[in-house]
């Protein structure tokens, strides 16, 4: 009995290997780190080294073999195309960055070396998530990612906050996943297919685009799961608490990688399901418009009131979810705006990931020992004491506020432009006004860094960690470069 007959792998052949490479690399990495982090000495370093190598290999594979057309494996359980490559790369890099900014922090806070393993597993889940058309496989990869992140959140073992955050995330996330899965099952029941392409064909052939209640409810439940993951109102409830409770680098990982993966998967689903001949259900558009407006307003108004930095970023991410939803609306609007909308969502995600990683790298460095729940007051005088750090932080904040010439500005402009092209004038105006309110969210830390007199001098001595510094510098460079030459970064699809 030959090997190939024992393990019939001939369903994957030729070019398909290239497609599966990133997933493969990350899986290997995850397993390897799991094993190696058990080493008594240097477990952390070895695990990180493995993760570094694996991630680089994964990203390199997407860069070296860029796809022009789609590679389908197992009838669409795995799909590799430009979209999955871009989002895989984003997720892998964001995971790597989160790992990098943890160097130093993990020793101080005595995090377990399995930290890197969990990141690797989460990234595997993400890569799978953005590369599938199959609803159940999507659920499985989502859970792979989520389970790893639940543990990451609770990992800060001495911290009750982390424990509570982990619990909360787990319970809410579990419920949301169940809802999503129920939606998948209803969709399956209505169309007889678990594959998005099949569902789409069923939509077209059976109902000519005008869906009856059953598939609509299925779609609705399925989207609720997504909306939960990207944190749209009213499914955002977990975000502030979980982001606050998790260790700072973990929050950085969630805010960048998890969000990007969810966005990427949603983008794939929308593109496969709706764009093209199938017209979007107006009901869905109405619902998502309402959710978009609510998300934008809620995020901005409540964010303004926050005094703890991680909460500030939590609400900031809710606002950003609102912007992304604006892009999805433009996508659902169909027509010629859809192509632009997709590419604007991709650009926005990239810009968003970069600036958030930078900001969290700074936060990691200035977070006090044992209690990394920074308040605004603790920022007082940072502009004088650590001008470069404060400057970098300011750039990231401004980028999030969307002030040119930074990445965030172009991200926002692309989205607005796409939304306008699809005719959402009033929604865009609401989004624009919300961005004025949310600007306050980002300006307040600057007020503390630069303008407040520091009566009691800044308590926390910022750590100087190489990994975080690298992330800060890289993010700073990229944020500004994306602001100056956005065209380089926005034609990836």
């Amino acid at each position, binding site marked *: 009995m030959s090997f190939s007959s024992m393990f019939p792998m001939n369903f994957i052949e030729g070019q398909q290997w290239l497609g599966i490479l990133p997933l493969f690399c990350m899986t290997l990495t995850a397993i390897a780190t799991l094993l190696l982090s058990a080493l008594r000495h240097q477990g952390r370093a070895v695990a990180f080294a493995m993760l570094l190598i694996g991630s680089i290999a994964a990203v390199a594979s997407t860069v070296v073999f860029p796809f022009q057309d789609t590679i389908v494996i197992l009838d669409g359980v795995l799909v590799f195309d430009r979209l999955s490559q871009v989002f895989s790369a984003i997720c892998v890099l964001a995971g790597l960055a989160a790992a990098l900014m943890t160097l130093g922090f993990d020793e101080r806070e005595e995090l377990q070396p399995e930290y890197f393993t969990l990141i690797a597993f989460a990234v595997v889940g993400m890569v799978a998530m953005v590369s599938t058309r199959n609803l159940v496989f999507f659920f499985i990869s989502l859970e792979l990612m989520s389970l790893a992140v639940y543990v990451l959140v*609770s990992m800060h073992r001495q911290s009750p*906050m982390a424990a*509570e955050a982990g619990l909360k995330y787990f*319970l809410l996330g579990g*419920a949301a996943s*169940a809802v999503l899965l129920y939606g998948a099952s209803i969709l399956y029941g209505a169309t007889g297919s678990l594959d998005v392409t099949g569902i789409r064909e069923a939509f077209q052939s059976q109902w000519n685009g005008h869906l009856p209640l059953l598939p609509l409810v299925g779609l609705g439940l399925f989207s609720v799961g997504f909306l939960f993951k990207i944190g749209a109102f009213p499914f955002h409830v977990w975000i502030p608490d979980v982001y606050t409770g998790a260790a700072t680098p973990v929050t950085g990982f969630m805010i960048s990688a998890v969000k990007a993966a969810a966005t990427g998967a949603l983008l794939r689903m929308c593109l496969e399901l709706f764009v093209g001949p199938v017209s979007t259900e107006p009901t869905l558009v109405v619902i998502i418009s309402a959710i978009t407006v609510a998300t934008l307003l809620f995020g901005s108004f409540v964010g303004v009131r926050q005094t703890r930095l991680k909460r500030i970023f939590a609400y900031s991410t809710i606002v950003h979810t609102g912007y992304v939803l604006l892009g999805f609306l433009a996508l659902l609007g169909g027509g010629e705006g859809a192509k632009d909308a997709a590419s604007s969502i991709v650009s926005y995600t990239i810009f968003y990931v970069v600036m958030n990683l930078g900001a969290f790298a700074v936060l990691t460095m200035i977070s006090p020992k044992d209690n990394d729940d920074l308040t605004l007051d603790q920022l007082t005088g940072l502009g004088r004491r650590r001008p470069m750090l404060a400057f970098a932080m300011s750039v990231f904040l401004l980028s999030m506020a969307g002030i040119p010439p930074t990445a965030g500005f172009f991200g926002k402009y692309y989205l607005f432009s796409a939304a306008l092209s699809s005719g959402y004038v009033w929604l865009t105006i609401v989004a624009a006004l919300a961005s004025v309110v949310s600007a306050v969210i980002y300006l307040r830390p600057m007020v503390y860094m630069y303008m407040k007199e520091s009566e009691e001098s800044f308590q926390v001595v910022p750590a100087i960690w190489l990994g975080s510094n690298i992330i800060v510098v890289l993010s700073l460079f990229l944020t500004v470069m994306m602001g100056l030459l956005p065209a380089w970064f926005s034609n990836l699809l």
Partner: protein
Amino acid sequence: MNSGTILHILSAYLFSMGLLALILRRNTIVMLMGIELMLNAVNLSFVTFARELSQLNGQVQVFFIITIAAAESAVGLSILINVYRNFGSIKTDRTTVLRS
């Protein structure tokens, strides 16, 4: 009412019960069970649909879901232990350090 409809209603009922458990109960273990209940309701739904459609496809998915559910309970229980270590309780009204 044919058996399929009854099963669908049952599945929806179970799902709702799971959700209600999450909303109404403060004991984390019960909430964990709620999640399991929801997943099982989905399983039921899948099986029923697969049967109605005369497909094997849907029925097979259940195995995956069961596996995931198991993993989820494992992770969930470990999180519960962690919570218990930190708070000395697994009631959600005791885990309040994050409230602002």
